[in-house]
């Protein structure tokens, strides 16, 4: 084999390699284009899922809804303690406490700080307002339904409103959180009647409470309070908003720090 033919063979091999490389590059361009488009189409298709799911949003505020005793349309919250009507009410701090009766963290917070919060509210040192929300009903729908207790947050909030009418707001609220089942188990009306009994409702008051939950008297109110929660963009539950500023979890869950924060807010 001469030098010439060896050179030619080498050149031919190089040309073949270059061609193969070019073919590979062209194949990759095609694969990237098609693959990229396929991924985009899949993402576009998935966009339909939230749009379909997005339709089952909570109802808008119904201004004609019946309200529990003392509740007003400006907040739909339940105001607790004598400080609200005290002569120096303006100098007493407000605590807006957002809770979902099915939320385990709320149950934990109540276990730690609940008694202290009520103590301060009852002593007139705090303008406490309970702001119920029912956002967990959609998150826990599958578990609640599997346990035959769908929309448990809504039902518990209705029952809370019914207890407010029977002057048992504080005791019912404490008893309900004390009886909170594992997340997703939920409540039915007979569970809530047991809670009302342990909150001290008997006789005519218990009968009226049961009528009220059976008639779902305060569903509209519960939805209105939830609507406020969504509109205000509350970050989660429990959320404690002291004089308009959200408390850190470390404060809300610690009765000593919470009392200090409330005392500090009072001085201002």
């Amino acid at each position: 084999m001469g030098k010439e033919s060896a050179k030619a063979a080498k050149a031919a091999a190089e040309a073949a390699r270059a061609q193969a490389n070019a073919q590979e590059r062209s194949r990759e361009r095609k694969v990237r284009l098609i693959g990229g488009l396929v991924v985009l189409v899949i993402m576009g298709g998935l966009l339909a899922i939230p749009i379909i799911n997005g339709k089952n949003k909570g109802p808008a505020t119904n201004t004609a809804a019946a309200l529990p005793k003392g509740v007003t349309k400006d907040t739909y919250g339940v105001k607790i303690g004598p400080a609200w009507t005290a002569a120096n009410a303006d100098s007493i701090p407000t605590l807006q406490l957002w809770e979902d009766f099915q939320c385990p963290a709320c149950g934990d917070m109540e276990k730690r700080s609940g008694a202290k919060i009520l103590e301060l509210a009852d002593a007139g040192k705090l303008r406490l307002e309970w702001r119920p929300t029912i956002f967990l009903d959609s998150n826990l729908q599958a578990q609640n339904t599997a346990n035959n207790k769908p929309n448990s947050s809504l039902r518990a909030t209705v029952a809370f409103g019914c207890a407010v009418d029977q002057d048992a707001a504080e005791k019912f609220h404490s008893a309900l959180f004390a009886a909170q089942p594992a997340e997703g188990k939920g409540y039915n009306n007979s569970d809530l009647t047991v809670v009302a009994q342990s909150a001290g409702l008997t006789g005519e008051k218990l009968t009226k409470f049961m009528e009220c939950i059976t008639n779902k008297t305060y569903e509209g109110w519960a939805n209105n309070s939830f609507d406020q929660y969504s509109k205000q963009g509350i970050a989660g539950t429990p959320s404690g908003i002291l004089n308009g500023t959200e408390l850190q979890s470390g404060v809300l869950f610690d009765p000593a720090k919470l009392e200090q924060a409330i005392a500090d807010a009072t001085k201002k």
Partner: protein
Amino acid sequence: MKGNPAFGLVSRLVLAGVLLYAGGVKIMEPHGARDAILAYRVFPPSWAPVLGYAMPLLEIGLGLLLLVGLFTRLSGLVAALLMLAFVAGIASVWARGYSIDCGCFGGGGDISPQGRAVRYSLEIARDLLFAGLGFWLFVWPRTLLSLEKN
């Protein structure tokens, strides 16, 4: 240096699995994703619904690309940056004293502060590991069983 194409394949598949799972769970419950984003208290509340839709879509898109090995260099970089953003989010809520469920794989919202330090540390360590895999793919995008060669 070409890295190790076999380890690259493992990185791709692990990241793809994590992203597809996280995105899939979130897109099935977009209210959950929205609430999880709200709980971070980082973005204005009005952004949460849009981010609640966009984030799972981004995760699924990246997951698919990494699964088949397309745009590996770019996907690896974006996945790594996304993981670092999650780390920043968790560190931020931790530093500001809130107790939340990271909402990484659905769920989300405020939770009890019990065991917070351990939980946040593990989540940050896990996301840093994922970010490391993403950066690996950014530096060495050549992997086995990939639709592209470079």
